[in-house]
């Protein structure tokens, strides 16, 4: 095992898949730069395969969808996931639906990469977590890596997948360090990972909330035995792993940074109450972001997002109830 950063893991995944398959190319604004995920790829693979675009997300996302229909394997980068709004038609009405509408004639081996995140004081139009929009749109897979190892393995699977995959990175995790296998590997989409075993309560958490939940579980380790599950992909969702855990613990808490209202947490509660009702010993809970546009001021932003103490306290509450 080596130790690398999340951003480096992503960079390696891109580079390896580009080396492996000439039909893979990257398109987006300032690719080769900004957050470092694509750094150096422009020099290594040239302009043909790492394409900097004008600020025309709808055009270059559409280009990606059309290229996927005609034999390439595009990776479209949206600089901040918030900007998906300007190309939402190409994502939600085109990429998500073309294969089905064609009766299975076209394949859409398209990866849309974007980063989300908060606490960087960039205000309402640069701080959204909107995996729910994607996940509520049939025809898109939605991946949210929370660890270094997953970042690489899931991105490689996303690129190889013949369907449109929305790959949501978290900019707060870019500098996270973690172990990384030396040999090549991929991680299948649709398989959750139990990141910590426990017996008192099941915590399902995504992206940076997974890291915060692990920290919270550590903090209260002598009081509560917490099982922490990272679904890793929201669509397809590994419901079985979650259900098996809840059947064991009898308790459920879901944590994410996206607003709680109609968020992923609600979906997990729906599935668990429907399919593991008899196992539940207490009311399931969700902690999410506030239902607000993100305020700029640090003192306000800080209270909008679940933090470790609040997660720990809620785990305690649910475990005791």
């Amino acid at each position, binding site marked *: 095992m080596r130790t690398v950063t999340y951003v480096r893991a992503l960079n390696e995944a891109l580079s390896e898949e580009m080396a492996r398959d000439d039909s893979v*190319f990257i398109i987006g604004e300032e690719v080769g730069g900004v957050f470092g995920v694509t750094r150096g790829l422009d020099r290594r693979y040239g302009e*043909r395969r790492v394409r900097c*675009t*004008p600020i*025309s997300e*709808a*055009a*270059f*996302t*559409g*280009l*990606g*969808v*059309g*290229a*996927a*229909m*005609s*034999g*390439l394997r*595009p990776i479209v980068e949206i600089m901040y996931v918030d900007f998906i709004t300007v190309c939402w*038609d*190409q994502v939600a*009405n*085109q990429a998500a639906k*073309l*294969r*089905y*509408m*064609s*009766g*299975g*004639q*076209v*394949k*859409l*081996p398209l990866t849309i990469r974007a980063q989300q995140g908060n606490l960087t004081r960039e205000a309402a139009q640069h701080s959204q977590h909107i995996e729910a929009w994607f996940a509520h749109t*049939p*025809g898109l897979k939605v991946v949210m890596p929370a660890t270094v190892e997953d970042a690489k393995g899931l991105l490689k699977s996303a690129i190889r997948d*013949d*369907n449109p995959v929305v790959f949501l990175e978290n900019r707060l995790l870019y500098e996270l360090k973690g172990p990384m296998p030396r040999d090549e590997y991929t991680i299948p989409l649709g398989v959750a990972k139990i990141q910590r075993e426990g017996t008192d309560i099941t915590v399902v958490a995504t992206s940076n909330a997974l890291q915060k939940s692990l920290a919270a579980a550590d903090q209260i380790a002598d009081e509560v035995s917490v099982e922490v599950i990272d679904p890793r992909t929201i669509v397809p969702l590994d419901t079985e792993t979650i259900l098996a855990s809840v059947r064991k613990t009898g308790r459920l808490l879901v944590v994410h940074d996206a607003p709680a209202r109609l968020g992923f947490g609600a979906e997990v509660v729906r599935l668990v109450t429907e399919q593991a009702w008899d196992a539940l010993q207490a009311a399931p809970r969700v902690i999410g972001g506030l239902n607000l546009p993100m305020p700029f001021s640090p003192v306000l932003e800080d209270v909008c997002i679940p933090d470790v103490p609040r997660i720990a306290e809620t785990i305690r509450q649910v475990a005791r109830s």
Partner: protein
Amino acid sequence: MKPTTDQMIEMLRTMLTIRHFEVTARTQYGHNRDLGSFLGALHSYEGQEAIAAGSCACLRCDDYVLSSHRGHGHFIAKGGDVKAMLAEILGKESGCSRGRGGSMHMFDVKLGLLGGNGVVGGGIPLALGPAFSAQYRGTDQVSAAFFGEGASSQGVFHEAMNLAALWRLPIIFMCENNRYAVRTPACEGVSVPEISVRAAGYGCPGVTVDGNDPVAVFEATSEAVARARAGDGPSLIEAVAYRQQPHCMVIAENRQEAELEQMRECDPLPNYETRLLTERLIDHQQLQAMKDEVTNLMDEAVAYAEAAPYPDPAAVHDYLWA
């Protein structure tokens, strides 16, 4: 480039096929509606036949077409099977999109037909994809986006023109100005009399042609295709014609009689027939034979589509994921 005699005659066949197909589809549609089964939207291409026929005659089988909501004509002109298209309109499993797409979403990937679009303008950025793909793979294929004058007011038109011009993508932007978007006249949707002038703002050629004349469309398109294949980038062609039918089958209209009169005078089909006869590229007997063939084809298509089975409801989840 001028079309050859063979191409001139083939364009007529294409136009006749489209016209007859639309009449057939409308009849089927009305028939089904009378039986209480409503088959969604149906946008007739009648009046615009010369555009699809003239432009697609310049395309090869391995070129790509991204179509609009009004796409039956493109499908036929690019070589699509009318039986499969009619079956699609009736929602049958043997439809060209296996009954999943319907009238606005006709696919035949072997022929480069990558679907119509229910979102006005939605296909324009998609068409950049095959153009990029051809450039990337180093082939000389081209991509054509068909869209209405109404669609040209969508932001993606601008973004795609700019990107294609910057990267010299092999793409033809084919704007079909049929003078209306639903009931909005072109002059209330587009701030200039000719959309083709916008090409100058992207540094690429733009031309307005008579969309009632397949030869004019052919000439403009063949030039644009040659440019594209040579690596000289995109072109914008505005082909002006007239939508003969209401926007779709369910929207009422009352156009002025004078306008309808004018429409009948510039109907591309009789005019082109007359021209071919006058120029002696075809005689009355050959024309009649061609019409009979087209009529037979439609009869076959109706028989085929009506007899074809519906999809199995249990298979509703098929084709979501590859």
